[in-house]
């Protein structure tokens, strides 16, 4: 077990304990709901960043997998035939399969062609949801709620147990993503992003590497969709609309793409701002837009990326040798 894995597991465990202790310290149901919301959208953004930030594939259609997780899980639970864990695994598996089929076509393309093809597949998925009314409920969404039968002694009907479930699932998924990006495979993805020709010369099959990243990102996004479906007790076509993918891209822009948890910070910021501003003014779109413009133009990168650069420049200044400039001074003198 490498030092990096132990460190990440320790960090994950500490984060999980902290999150689980929040209700005990009077966080309140409102804060719990907010954190569940951030966890769901955080997984969407973190998984998208595996493609966008680490592999250089800007997907405009990532919400399709988010929605796929929500719908497949909701439909399986409404069937009454399967338990929560089985529905969970089947939903993630179905979404991974869907991502495999779509990814096999999309990852052959580059840049804007890749982006638009992923968007096209997402809108096709959205159209299927709208038109297959007998299965999906069409634009009314998956009606009737999502049953939460007790499994392994866990009752998701209780708000505390549901919160704990969401946090555990979130931390596990974040750790999985973290291990992916820290692995040799993750470094291969960065190489493909920075210099795909060099990766090919070094014997990397870039197609399969990108396809695997695409499938993994889709599978993790589906977990976010499952959490949101459980939270909202339904699945809705808006989950698969292009604006949902747009939100995920905004989260990455706001939080940062070069720091692993940057997209999560972006998700928390965007959802927090949304919550705060919506309660304050009806012109929330205007205010939110100004905040984002100021952040993007002022920092010219995500907040976490900015913090990283700032810390790095500080460290370099500190580590730099004392100014050996007397010769220059002497010349001037």
């Amino acid at each position: 077990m490498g030092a990096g894995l132990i460190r990440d597991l320790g960090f994950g465990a500490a984060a999980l304990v902290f999150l689980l202790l929040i209700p005990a310290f009077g966080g309140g149901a409102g804060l719990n709901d907010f954190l569940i919301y951030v966890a769901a959208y955080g997984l969407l953004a973190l998984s998208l960043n595996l493609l966008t930030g680490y592999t250089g594939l800007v997907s405009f259609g990532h919400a399709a997998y988010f929605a796929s997780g929500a719908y497949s899980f909701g439909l399986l639970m409404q069937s009454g035939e399967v338990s929560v864990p089985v529905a969970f695994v089947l939903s993630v598996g179905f979404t991974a399969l869907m991502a495999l089929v779509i990814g096999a076509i999309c990852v052959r393309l580059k840049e804007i062609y890749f982006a638009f093809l992923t968007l096209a597949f997402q809108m096709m998925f959205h159209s299927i949801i709208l038109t297959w009314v007998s299965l999906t409920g069409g634009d009314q969404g998956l009606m009737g709620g999502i049953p939460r039968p007790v499994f392994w002694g866990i009752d998701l009907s209780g708000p505390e147990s549901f919160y704990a479930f969401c946090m555990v699932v979130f931390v596990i998924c974040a750790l999985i993503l973290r291990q992916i990006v820290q692995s040799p495979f993750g470094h291969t993805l960065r190489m493909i992003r920075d210099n795909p020709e060099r990766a090919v010369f070094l014997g990397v099959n870039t197609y399969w590497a990108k396809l695997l990243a695409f499938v993994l990102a889709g599978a993790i996004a589906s977990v976010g969709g499952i959490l949101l479906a459980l939270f909202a007790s339904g699945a809705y076509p808006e989950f698969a609309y292009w604006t949902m993918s747009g939100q995920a891209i905004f989260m990455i822009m706001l939080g940062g793409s070069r720091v692993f948890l940057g997209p999560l910070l972006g998700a928390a910021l965007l959802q927090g701002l949304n919550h705060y501003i919506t309660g304050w003014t009806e012109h929330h779109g205007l205010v939110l837009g100004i905040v984002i413009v100021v952040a993007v133009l002022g920092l010219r990168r995500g907040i976490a990326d900015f913090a990283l650069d700032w810390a790095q420049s500080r460290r370099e200044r500190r580590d730099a040798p004392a100014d050996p400039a007397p010769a220059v001074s002497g010349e001037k003198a």
Partner: protein
Amino acid sequence: MTRSNAPNPSLAKSSLTPSRRQLLVAAGAGVAVSALGAPFVARGAGAKLRIGMPTILSGRVAILGTSSRDAATLAVNQFNASGGFGGREVELVVRDSKGQPDEAARVTRDLVNTEGCEIIIDAEASSGSFAVNEVVGDLGVLCLHTCSETSALTADPKLRKPTAFRSARQGIHDAVAGGKYAAELAKANGLMKWMTCSPDYAYGRDNTAQFVEYLTIFAPDVEVVNEAWPKLFEPDYTAYVTRVLQVQPDAIYSALWGGDLVSFLEQANLYQIFAGGLQWFSGGLADPPIVNALKQLPEGLHSVFRYDPDYPDSAANKAFYKDFDAISETEPTNWSWQTYTAVQFINQALAATAGNTDGMALAQEVAGATVDSPFTESGTITMRAEDHTIIDYPVAWGRSRPEPKGFQDWERGDWEQILTMEKEWKQRQGYL
């Protein structure tokens, strides 16, 4: 956070070293992040009884939310002005869901869990209402849906929640009333060749199918010769207008509503499609803001009642119109009277429970309750206990007049027949 993804440190170093200005921006962002935690400090129930209202206040259907909010505000103000409840005032807390169902669910949870709201008025469109319905099923608070017309929300026993009610018209009632009204006109005037033009989404298709179903029940000889399904929020209806000119039907039924309906009629007026006696039947035209948004309202268009200050022609209705006008930038809509009625039910239930806001206690008082209403021909509206939905509300159909723009000649719906046919429909759907 650990750095793991820098593309090229040597390149990043010179161009990305933060400046003093950027540090200030970052500090501001940090303060903003810290402040985000503030709203989640739960507010305990204070002296005021808080009623939460998730609705749509932005986007193309914002009038749904604003006209609902203003009606609720009017009703709450009147309640407080009359002394409130045992000295305890009611406070309305309105939040914008932006028309997103998952946001509606989150906002509703937040209104209860963080804002301390004890009752929910759900002024969402249908998909949002289904999301809110599930949330109030979990939370157990009293909820009145005031905008969703989808019958299944309360008619389907699998979806019904013990503390959720509908204070809004519903599709099956309008279909029976509209079908009968249109069928009688069709038989009297020989309107045998029909066309439909409705928005291409669940509400548009369901509403139109139900109208046609009952039209053909009451007038079996009628034939629907063409169907047009423009997209929701489509800006250009020229293709559909020209299709009407090609098909030359005797009558059209349309479930278009809001800005879409205005756009269609404006473009139809350019082609003067009503000049030849074409009859137009609409499920959403008689809302005053829609009527006033039209540059030219042709004479003789048919619409189901949405709201009319002159119907019913009572002092109470005119007083409502005047009071609403005093606080709102828009005229009352269908959603306004429905929301106002919801607050009436809530106030009456609160009086009956002596201020107990327990969801089930209030629900027992709302179920089967009757309130005095300025909006109905009978002067009352009843919340039917068996399926938590209102009956005896206006399902009248009227005809448009160009000057002053509005509707007249309202023909009252036959509620006895509506209830009989609704029961048959429920049996067919497996709801009974």
